[in-house]
């Protein structure tokens, strides 16, 4: 039994990591890219101001993205392998010309070059040093100044020595000053428009040479493939508990700590209620299989099952939670407890809780009555037709004992398997029910985080949901072993 449990526990690790990677990748695909963010930030000013402040704002945004690890590629970082020819090609792609699609051009300029970070400093420097590519010196210096730019994080004020901070600050400022002004002309492409181009170029090369070690790629290009990725950055923050939610100004797990228990116990209750209703109902139907009552119940359950829970929740809210003229309503319209519930006696408190949770629990569970009870009905029916039941009946065992002790017990394995699936289903349904009944749980938090594009909080909430789900599945696995001696015997 223990080896079985241990084996199940070990399996959870790759499952957990797999879910994490997929979630992270989907989130990164959905989230605004740096280009989008810069573009929307730039959209605030009017025409000419936008153009003026565009390059200034990019450093601002770089800082914000650096803080969340969003300046790195999601899963694989191949930036260390970009050659100077590759860089040259990308610069040329960003060049304006009569045939160039404007949107493509700007994307090439912004996304491909400006935001690639220190790993691109070496090849960009090679382009800058190349006397034959004088036309590209302007855009290369712009890209260099941004790739070598190192945003200072608030914690750097405490972590880095003041002299080091000063050095970075001075270098950032110098980088900005040493940009070679250029125009990207509609007809002629890149034109250097800076009388001091030669001086700036030499100074920029000298400046970055002085810090050549910091930008050297040979030592880190291989390790960077994995280590300098958004996922590793995220995982590092996750496992050190440093995922920070910008929208709540708090560590993500601190925010979740207040919320997860509501979702967990409502889920647990939902499963218990689903079983408590479905098992007797399934057995009752199996004993009356084919009768009018059985068919009526089946019809009713399937019609319930086909109505989406958020719709039922909204209808219930309007009809049972809206106060009439005298200020009375059947059920409360929001939350899980009355405002003064802390001072109620414990039985009154529990009654208040039950009153608040009744409709949400109904909405969460009614859908699962159908699947659970119909599966059980089929199983019990099958068991009742089997040989050992006939033998038991022949021995004179009472019908109740035959049904409950023999047929139903042997059908429970299916119920446990379904129970684990039910848990996953509940997590989905919970979001809507929490929203409609204004219950501050994990589902609502996740969706709010998604709406506010708070990726760290969303990932932390996902981690906790997945964790709860995996624990649920583990419990189901263990119950499986308890219910089915064949499984137990395999691992003993």
């Amino acid at each position: 039994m223990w080896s079985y449990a241990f084996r199940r526990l070990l399996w959870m690790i790759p499952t957990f990591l797999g879910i994490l990677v997929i979630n992270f990748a989907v989130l990164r695909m959905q989230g605004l890219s740096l280009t989008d963010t810069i573009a929307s930030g730039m959209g605030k000013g009017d025409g000419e101001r936008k153009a003026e402040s565009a390059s200034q704002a990019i450093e601002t945004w770089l800082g914000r993205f650096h803080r969340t690890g969003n300046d790195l590629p999601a899963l694989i970082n191949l930036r260390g392998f970009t050659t100077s020819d590759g860089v040259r090609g990308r610069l040329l792609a960003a060049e304006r010309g009569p045939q160039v699609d404007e949107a493509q051009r700007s994307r090439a300029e912004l996304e491909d070059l400006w935001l690639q970070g220190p790993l691109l400093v070496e090849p960009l420097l090679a382009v800058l040093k190349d006397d034959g590519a004088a036309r590209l010196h302007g855009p290369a210096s712009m890209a260099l100044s941004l790739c070598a730019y190192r945003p200072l994080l608030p914690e750097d004020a405490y972590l880095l020595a003041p002299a080091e901070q000063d050095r970075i600050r001075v270098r950032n400022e110098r980088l900005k000053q040493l940009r070679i002004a250029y125009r990207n002309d509609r007809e002629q492409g890149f034109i250097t428009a800076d009388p001091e181009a030669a001086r700036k170029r030499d100074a920029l090369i000298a400046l970055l040479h002085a810090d050549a070690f910091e930008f050297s790629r040979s030592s880190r290009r291989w390790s960077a493939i994995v280590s300098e990725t958004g996922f590793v950055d995220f995982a590092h923050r996750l496992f050190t508990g440093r995922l920070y939610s910008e929208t709540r100004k708090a560590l993500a797990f601190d925010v979740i700590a207040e919320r997860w228990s509501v979702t967990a116990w409502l889920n647990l209750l939902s499963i218990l209620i689903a079983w408590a209703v479905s098992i007797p109902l399934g057995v009752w139907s199996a004993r009356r299989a084919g009768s009018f009552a059985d068919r009526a119940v089946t019809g009713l359950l399937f019609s319930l099952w086909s109505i989406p829970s958020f719709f039922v929740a909204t209808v219930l809210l309007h009809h049972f939670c809206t106060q009439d003229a005298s200020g009375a309503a059947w059920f409360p319209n929001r939350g899980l407890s009355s405002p003064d519930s802390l001072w109620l006696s414990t039985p009154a408190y529990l009654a208040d809780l039950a009153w608040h949770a009744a409709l949400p629990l109904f909405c969460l569970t009614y859908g699962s009555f159908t699947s659970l009870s119909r599966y059980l009905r089929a199983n019990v029916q099958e068991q009742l037709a089997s040989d050992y039941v006939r033998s038991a009946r022949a021995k004179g065992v009472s019908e109740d004992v035959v049904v409950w002790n023999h047929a139903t017990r042997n059908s429970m394995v299916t119920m446990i398997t379904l129970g684990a699936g039910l848990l996953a289903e509940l997590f989905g349904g919970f979001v809507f029910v929490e929203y409609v009944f204004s219950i501050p749980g994990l589902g609502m938090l996740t969706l709010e985080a998604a709406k506010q594009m708070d990726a760290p909080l969303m990932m932390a909430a996902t981690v906790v949901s997945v964790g709860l789900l995996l624990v649920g599945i583990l419990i189901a696995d263990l119950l499986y072993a308890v219910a089915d001696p064949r499984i137990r015997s395999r691992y003993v």
Partner: protein
Amino acid sequence: MSKAALALLSVVALLLVVQIIDRWREPAQLQAVMQASERSASAQERMLQELKAMRHELARRSATASTDAAVEPLSPADKRDDKRDGKPRLGANFLLPYDRTHVHPAWFGGTIREFNVTPKGFNPIVENSADANEALGLVNDSLCTSHPATPQLWSESLAESVVVSDDWKTYTFRLRPGVMWQRPNCAKQKEFAWLDRDVPLTSADFAFYVEMVQNPEVECPQLKSYYDDLERIETPDDRTIVLHWKKKVFTSMSFSFGMSPLPRHIYAFSRDGSPIAAKAIGTVFNKHWFDDLGGIAGVGGYTLDVNESDKLVRFRRNPTYWGATYHFDAMEWDAEVKLPDPQLVAFKNGQVHSLTLQPAQWKSQIVDGGESRFARPDPKDPKAGRTGELGWEKVKGNSYSYIGWNLRRAIFADKRTRQALACAMPKQRLIDEIWFGLGRPQIGPVHLDNPYFNSEIKDFAYDPTRAKALLSESGWRDSDNDGWLDREIDGKRVPLRITLKFLANRPTWEAGLLVYRDELKRLGVDLRTETYEWKEMLRIYEEKDFDAVVGGWQLGSLEPDFVQVWNSASADEPRSSNHVGFRNARVDELSLRLRESFEPETRMPIIKEIQAIIFEDQPYLFFMSTGSVFVWQNRGAPAKDRWLAGVAEGLDAYHPLFNRSPLLWHFVRE
């Protein structure tokens, strides 16, 4: 086991569970008691402080009153001028005296509750959300202000006077004396005892604001672009602020008058009260400890009392405030209920005092009589909704929606084609039937209620015959008899086929466009619609990847500016707001001239001419000026403080270009 034993065991188990829950609740109860006692202690202390400050303020006022006549003006800015009519002009203080006439001390009291979200932060420079700005509006003040009913007139606020000189490039403000910063909530904690003191507002707080906005490391691109034009700020003494702008631009006026102070005594210091090094302040400011604490400090009429994320934000009246506040002792933002339907139920249950209804809710609850406590609409009386137990009134919004034609496409080259498309749109019918009458047909790019709106422009009425004629004039014929119009462009036959892109999950637009498509089909125009998610729509706007697109603009200000949306120079710029590619040399010239014109008399003809040109050109099919339904708790409700009065007067004074202001609201006393 016998049944009796089983029952007994169950009862014991149940009691045990109740006992466990009982023990489990104890720490929470204990904590609540501690918090309540702490709150009452700090409230007591606060009252003492406030009493002291009020006494101080009274003494100061009586001293000022007795010596007012004898005191010499402190600076030229302080010279009294009879022509203080609120209209900006050069060389003299024109600010209206501070208006306290709407305040009735007898109406003070009660807590007003509305739905809102909890802002993710209150940093006045880094945060840019509407809710944060709303909170800052309650907690902080600006140099000058304008009354919602007369938005074009400026009056005193933190500044007692302003003199504009140097051809609208220099603004000299004189600050009101004796204004004190609110003490932030955290000042009560031992760690922040260094904040538990009286700090007067000085000109340095404004200089600090400008310093932070202009600091290259501070993350506020949205503000930076506007303050780029500010050359420098001078503070010759604690009460004088001089702003020097680089050039004469109209927008710098509102940015000067609307500037708010930033609490230097908080933001320039570390958590332990030591000053932050000048070099590091930019980076530290972006993630300041005070913002992490959810703190906010201002000099305004309300102070932040409670801030619980996703639950509640509560502001209480600042009793030492020098100016006039709203009548409520406290204002609460309920952030627990998020969806429109649960919000409506909560409103009906009396949990909030007011709400804005969705079009579908307006139809089901009021038009169809779904809620009997709302009075039924009366076509003759637009104010009929005020009488019900729950009050309602239609209010005008400050945005408009449109269909933009991509002028880079050859099919739209002739303006008569675009005019024909406008004639084919039954705007009023769509507004009445699909938006349930919540809106008005929009005419041109200026708000219909703006004094600058050109009322001489006549909208293209729904007229399929005229549309047909215009299309034929612009060369569209069905030459191949396939039922669709076509025309020869660059030697090729091109059908008049338009793909219109719009945001997904907009049932009203889906229905409206279905009707429009049928109208166009009858004329031989093939309109095809496609829906996209928001992120993809952003890309479509930015990259101009459309024939036609549904869009909308928020019109926040009284003074229109046409450069952002209508300037030819930005027609080809990626990500510009001129996504339809509008070009017109006259509009360019006029809009730049408008930026340098400051007097309403010179601005008026320019704005009217621009409107006429743009409307005639029809780069947009201007569709609808938005509207909504505002509902409030009226009378007859059981709880005393659910009687919200003054709403009607507030609605009468409401101007759609400005936020609805609860200036006149108060609770009815029995």
